């Protein structure tokens, strides 16, 4: 029984990792109606920026506060320089660019920061794990951060005009432009915010799984799975989805199919759920435009 609870708790911990990255995916999807495959690599790159600052002697929270806006600028710049000229291009061209960005960020990070595994500090202190060794301080702290980010995104889209304009710009750029929404600015803002959320996720994930250029390769897939499972239009759904994926994966691997098919099983369950509820557990089914 102890083992079972421990599996669930450790599933929640991994789920928290997926959830934090899933939030960045929700952000970029809400803002652009694309899913950026390079989101994970951009988050990894931001985390290296933070680490460089910390190693240069900048205190943790100061580094945190610098990294987030810097990531925002990088994200917005990519939208301005690379994506905007492709606004009228076929969707497939955008996906091509995402793959290009993924390869570039990964390779440049390895080149600049080397591939050696780096520890990343946790702001919540090392110390002994809490609750009988089940949960580390960092897991608790980072879950809290994820919830704060979640609340902010939810409030942003729900209560601010900017959030509404952003969703409108993504949903129907032509009509939005007609009613005076500066669509390009909204897209750049969306990219920037997604990159910032990614940076926060990266800084929360890195202390757990260690920082290296391939840090996000595995995480991104599970984050996608979580976002899809919960519904990519719904930040709360994405977070819940991330946690569910973490738990399913752990319990399935430990008790049902064994570790060799853990990943496959988790993905299979998600596909089954999606075929029953194509918009995810908490997503809104949108009537597609004709």
């Amino acid at each position, binding site marked *: 029984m102890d083992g079972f609870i421990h599996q669930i708790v450790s599933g929640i911990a991994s789920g928290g990792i997926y959830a934090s990255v899933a939030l960045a995916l929700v952000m970029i999807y809400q803002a652009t109606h694309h899913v950026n495959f390079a989101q994970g690599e951009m988050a990894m790159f931001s985390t290296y920026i933070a680490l460089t600052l910390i190693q240069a002697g900048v205190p943790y929270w100061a580094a945190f506060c610098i990294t987030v806006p810097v990531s925002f600028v990088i994200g917005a710049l990519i939208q301005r320089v690379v994506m905007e000229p492709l606004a009228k291009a076929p969707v497939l061209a955008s996906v091509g660019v995402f793959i290009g960005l993924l390869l570039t960020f990964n390779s440049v990070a390895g080149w600049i920061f080397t591939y050696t595994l780096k520890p990343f500090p946790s702001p919540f202190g090392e110390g002994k794990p809490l609750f009988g060794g089940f949960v580390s301080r960092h897991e608790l702290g980072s879950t809290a951060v994820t919830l704060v980010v979640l609340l902010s995104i939810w409030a942003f889209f729900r209560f601010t005009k900017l959030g509404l304009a952003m969703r409108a710009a993504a949903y129907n750029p032509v009509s939005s432009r007609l009613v005076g929404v500066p669509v390009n600015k909204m897209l750049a803002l969306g990219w920037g915010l997604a990159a910032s959320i990614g940076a926060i996720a990266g800084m929360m994930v890195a202390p757990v799984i260690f920082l290296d250029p391939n840090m996000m390769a595995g995480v991104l897939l599970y984050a996608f799975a979580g976002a899809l499972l919960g519904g990519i239009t719904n930040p709360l759904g994405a977070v819940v989805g991330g946690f569910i994926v973490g738990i399913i994966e752990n319990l399935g*691997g430990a008790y049902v199919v064994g570790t*060799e098919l853990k990943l496959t099983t988790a993905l299979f369950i998600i596909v089954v759920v999606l075929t029953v509820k194509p918009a995810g557990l908490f997503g809104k089914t949108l009537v597609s435009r004709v």
Partner: protein
Amino acid sequence: MKRRSLLATAGAALASAPLSRAFAATVVGVTATEIKIGNIMPYSGPASAYGAIGRGHVAFFKRVNEQGGIAGRKINLITLDDGYAPPKTVEQARRLVEQDQVAFLFNPLGTPNNSAIQKYMNQKKVPHIFLSTGADKWGDPEHFPWTMGWQPSYRTEAQIYAKYIMKNAPNAKVAVLYQNDDFGKDYLIGLKDGFGAHYSKYVLKEFSFEVTDATIDSQAVSMQATGADTIVTAATPKFAAQMIRKVYDMSWKPLHFLTNVSASVGAVITPAGVEKAVGIITSAYAKDPTDSTWDKDAGMNEWRAFMKQYLPEADVTDGGYVFSYGACTTLVQVLKQCGDDFSRENIMKQAASLKNLVIPTLLPGVTINTSATNYHPIRQMQLSKWNGKTWELFGELIEGTGA
């Protein structure tokens, strides 16, 4: 109709074409002034961390050339990227052998990658030597006389752990964590060899993970739940570091054997936490550049001086450069032994005639020996235990059995 005429045209064209059935001269890629060597590395793709080894090679032979080369010849090392994809490895190997006409292939990286070209290299009778992979199958002179490994095989290492356990902890209950790929599976095979008929008595359960997994926490929890008191971890650095930390965090104190692939102080033990790794046992054959034991070691100082001069920007905590230095030093000895006969046959013969070769980056006492029937250049390892500051060597040098 159209297809038939197409084939006819092709046939006619072919008959008139000069058929280049090259009869491979035994001396290829070596002139009076140059020795051309091929190498394939994953500079891009999922294993690009190992690209450091290839950059180390380039720098090493730059130094060799500045010091006058070998037998009056400069070394021309052509190193190509395969992105860790076996189809690309085949392509690059063919380019090196057929187009660039290299004398031989040195240190191509990766088990699946070398598996993909092993047959080709042996059919072409081109030396395929000192591979950058720890699979056991590279020491098979009977079937593949042109292929030779370098480092001790993963299987040998796992056998050493199994034997140690049987001797020192006969009542041990073992759980194994392995990476679900060629590297991890070789450890399982090695443990099976080592425990022999007693395997099921000792090993309670094996747990796999994928390199795409985010964490191995779930596996660690399951391992503890089996009631094991001994664990063997066959994981690459990231997962090894996670394992060390998780075991500590669970207040679990098993006897922990860790693959030497992930024994780097700088890349694994320090990130995981030096105090969390106390008591872990590994087996080593080379010196760790990040272990303070070797801070004043003459061999490592030689390596550090080389790094400082030829790779000043490089990350000296990266064990890939030490690995490269050792493999290159071995190769230089082979080429020196060739005298003035750089035929492929002689290069292979000399590679298989190394006697008690001492390499500055290998552990004291570990020497390189090969013969026509022994294609495992490094067979010795020594157990060492992490004491919180350094890896403390203990016991005798252990000679692996090879295949």
